[in-house]
C-alpha cells in the first residue's frame, strides 16, 4: 500500500462455514487477543460483538455512511454507534422461469396463481421452492413473506411484534402454499440453499427464492437445464406490505484490543473504496454496498444480474432484528416456524408462542424494551 508504506497486512485464514468462523471469533475476542485487528463479520454478528465490547465504534474515524445503502448501515448500528462498515451485500431474490412466464409476478397472489398454472399446464413439478429446513435460512425466507404483508419481527423500539395480525397472515400464506395450493413441496422443509438450487436448476421448479450466488452457477449450460431461461426479480409484496428482501452480507470491524486501530481503519477504508468494491464484483461476483456504483458500466459487466434490478432489490432489503442475542431469538423462532410449516401447530398459536418465548428471553438478559410511560426496567 503506497499511501501507508509502513502498514503490513497479514491475512489469516478462517473456516468457510459461518458457524465455525463465529465460534473462532468468539474464542479470540473473549480471550482479549490483540490479533486479528480486522474481522469480517456476518451481518447478524455486529450487535452481538458490539454489546460484548469486542469491537470498536467507528464513528470517530468519520466513515462516509451516507454513501452506503441505509439498511446495511442500520444493521451495523448498536446503541447509537456504528460498529462495522458494510463490505459486500447479499439479498434474497425471486428466480423465475422466462420460458414459462412473460413477466415476474407483481404480488404474492399473482405468484401463487402463476405457480399453480405452471404445474397444471406446463407440467412443472414444483410451483415454488424456498429454504424451509429448521435453520437461519428459514428465518430469512420468513422475513420476506412477513414484510410482504407488512409485518416485522422486532419493531424500532426493540419490541417483539412477530405475533401481529400481519405476521399470522404471512405464515398462514406460507402454510397454505404447502398444504392448500400445494405449490410448495413438503420436501422443501428439509432443504437449504443448495437443494433448492438443484431443484430449480433441473427444471423441476417454476419459482425459487434464493441468494445471488445461484445465478452464475445456473447459467452454466453444462450443469444446468435452465441456463438462459430464467431471470430474477424482487420477492413480491402482498396486501398491506411491500416487496421485501432479507439482508445478508459481510462487514468489516476492528478488534477492541487491536494495537493498531488507526492502521486497521486505514485498511478498512481502503477495502471499502468504490474501486475496490468494483474489483471485488469483477473477481468474485460480490455485490457492492454503495448505491452509486450500480450506475457504473463496469458493474454491469461484472455482475450476472442487471445492476438496476439488483439495486431495486437491495433497496428493499430488511435486516434481521438488530440485537445482541439475535442467534438465540432466531433459534426460538425457527423452531416455532418449522412446527407451523410442518403442520404440527396452527400459525397463530406458533407465532404467539414464539413471541412469548422471545420476550421472556429478552427480559431474562436485561434487553427488554423500555415501556413508553417509563415503567420499564
Amino acid at each position: 500500500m503506497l499511501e501507508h508504506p509502513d502498514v503490513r497486512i497479514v491475512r489469516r485464514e478462517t473456516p468457510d462455514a459461518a458457524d465455525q468462523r463465529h465460534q473462532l471469533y468468539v474464542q479470540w475476542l473473549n480471550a482479549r487477543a490483540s490479533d486479528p485487528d480486522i474481522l469480517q463479520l456476518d451481518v447478524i454478528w455486529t450487535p452481538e460483538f458490539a454489546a460484548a465490547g469486542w469491537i470498536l465504534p467507528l464513528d470517530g474515524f468519520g466513515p462516509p455512511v451516507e454513501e452506503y445503502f441505509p439498511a446495511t448501515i442500520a444493521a451495523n448500528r448498536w446503541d447509537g454507534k456504528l460498529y462495522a462498515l458494510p463490505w459486500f451485500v447479499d439479498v434474497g431474490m425471486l428466480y423465475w422461469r422466462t420460458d414459462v412466464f412473460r413477466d415476474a409476478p407483481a404480488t404474492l397472489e399473482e405468484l401463487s396463481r402463476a405457480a399453480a398454472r405452471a404445474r397444471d399446464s406446463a407440467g412443472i413439478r414444483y410451483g415454488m421452492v424456498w429454504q424451509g429446513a429448521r435453520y437461519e435460512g428459514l428465518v430469512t425466507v420468513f422475513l420476506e413473506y412477513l414484510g410482504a404483508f407488512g409485518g416485522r419481527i422486532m419493531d424500532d423500539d426493540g419490541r417483539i411484534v412477530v405475533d401481529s395480525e400481519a405476521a399470522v397472515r404471512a405464515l398462514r400464506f406460507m402454510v397454505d402454499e404447502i398444504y392448500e395450493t400445494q405449490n410448495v413441496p413438503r420436501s422443501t422443509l428439509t432443504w437449504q440453499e443448495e437443494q433448492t438450487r438443484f431443484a430449480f436448476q433441473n427444471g423441476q421448479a417454476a419459482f425459487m427464492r434464493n441468494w445471488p450466488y445461484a445465478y452464475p452457477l445456473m447459467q452454466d449450460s453444462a450443469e444446468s437445464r435452465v441456463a438462459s431461461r430464467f431471470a430474477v426479480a424482487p420477492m413480491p409484496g402482498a396486501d398491506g406490505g411491500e416487496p421485501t428482501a432479507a439482508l445478508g452480507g459481510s462487514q468489516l470491524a476492528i478488534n477492541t484490543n487491536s494495537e493498531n486501530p488507526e492502521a486497521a481503519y486505514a485498511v478498512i477504508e481502503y477495502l471499502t473504496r468504490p474501486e475496490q468494491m468494483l474489483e471485488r464484483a469483477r473477481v468474485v461476483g460480490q455485490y457492492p454496498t454503495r448505491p452509486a456504483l450500480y450506475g457504473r458500466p463496469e458493474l454491469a459487466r461484472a455482475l450476472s444480474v442487471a445492476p438496476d434490478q439488483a439495486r431495486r432489490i437491495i433497496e428493499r432489503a430488511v435486516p434481521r432484528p438488530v440485537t445482541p442475542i439475535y442467534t438465540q431469538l432466531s433459534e426460538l423462532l425457527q423452531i416455532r416456524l418449522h412446527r407451523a410449516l410442518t403442520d404440527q401447530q396452527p400459525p397463530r398459536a406458533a407465532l404467539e408462542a414464539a413471541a412469548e418465548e422471545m420476550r421472556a428471553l429478552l427480559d431474562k438478559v436485561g434487553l427488554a424494551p423500555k415501556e413508553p410511560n417509563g415503567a420499564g426496567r
Partner: protein
Amino acid sequence: MRRLTGWGPVLVVGLLVVATAFPFYWAIVSSLTPEARLFEAPSLFPSQLVFDHYRALFDQRDFWIPIRNSLIVAGNTTAFCVLVGSLCAYALARLQFRWKRPILAFILAVTMFPQISIVSPLYLLLRELRLINTYPGLVLPYLTFAMPLTVWLLVSFFRQLPAELEEAAMADGASRLRAFWEIILPLSLPGLATTAILTLVYCWNEFLFALSFTLGPERQTVPVAIALFRGQYQVPWGQILAAAVVATAPIALLVLLFQRKIVQGLTAGAVKG
C-alpha cells in the same frame, strides 16, 4: 512352582498383542497411502507407499511448531515438578512430622481432581494476567495435575530405598539435609528419571487445558493441533494419521525403552500406595 505355558494363555496374549498393534499398523499404512486411494476400499497390505502426507505435514502445516510447543510446555512443567516435588516426596516418605498422613491423602486426592471444574477460574485468571495463548499460560495450569502426580510417584519410589541409608550417613556425622543431598539423591536418579518420563508423557498428552487456553497454531500443542486439523473439502485423513504417527512414535519409543521401570512406578503408586 510350575508355570503353565499351555496354548490357552499364549493365545489370549497373542490376541492382545494383535488387537493392540493393529490400529497402529493401520494408521502407519494409511498415512503412507496416497490421498486418492484413502477413500477407496481399504486393503490390509497396500501396494503403493508414498511420503506425501508427511511432507505436507511439515511443509504446509508447519507441524514443527506444535511439536516445539509441546516440548517447551511439557519440559518446563516436568522440570519444575520434579525439582520441587522430589523434596516434598522425600519428606513425606522418609521424614517424621505431624500432618504427614493427611497431606499424603490430600495429595492422592488431588491427583484425581477433575480438570474441567477449574477451567472457568483459570481462564479468567489467565485472561487477566494476559497469559492466554502463552507458554506460562499452559505451564501454570499443568502444575495442577503434574505436581501431585510427581509427588505421588516419587513417594512410592523413595519408600523403596533401604531405611538405613540416612541412619548410616547421620551416624557418620552428616545432617539430614546433607544425607539427602549426598546419599539419597544420587541413588534416586533412576526413580527421578522414571517419574520425569511419566510426567512428560502426561503433559504431552494433555488436551483440555491446551484446548481452552490457546488460541492458534503459534502456541497449540500437538494433541490440539491434530484434533483441529481442517481440510478444505474433506477431512485430511492422510495428514492426520501422519501427524498421529509422528506424535506417537517418540512416546512409544520412550515407553518401550523404560517399560519395566514404568510399570513398577505405576502399579506401585496405584495399587500399593
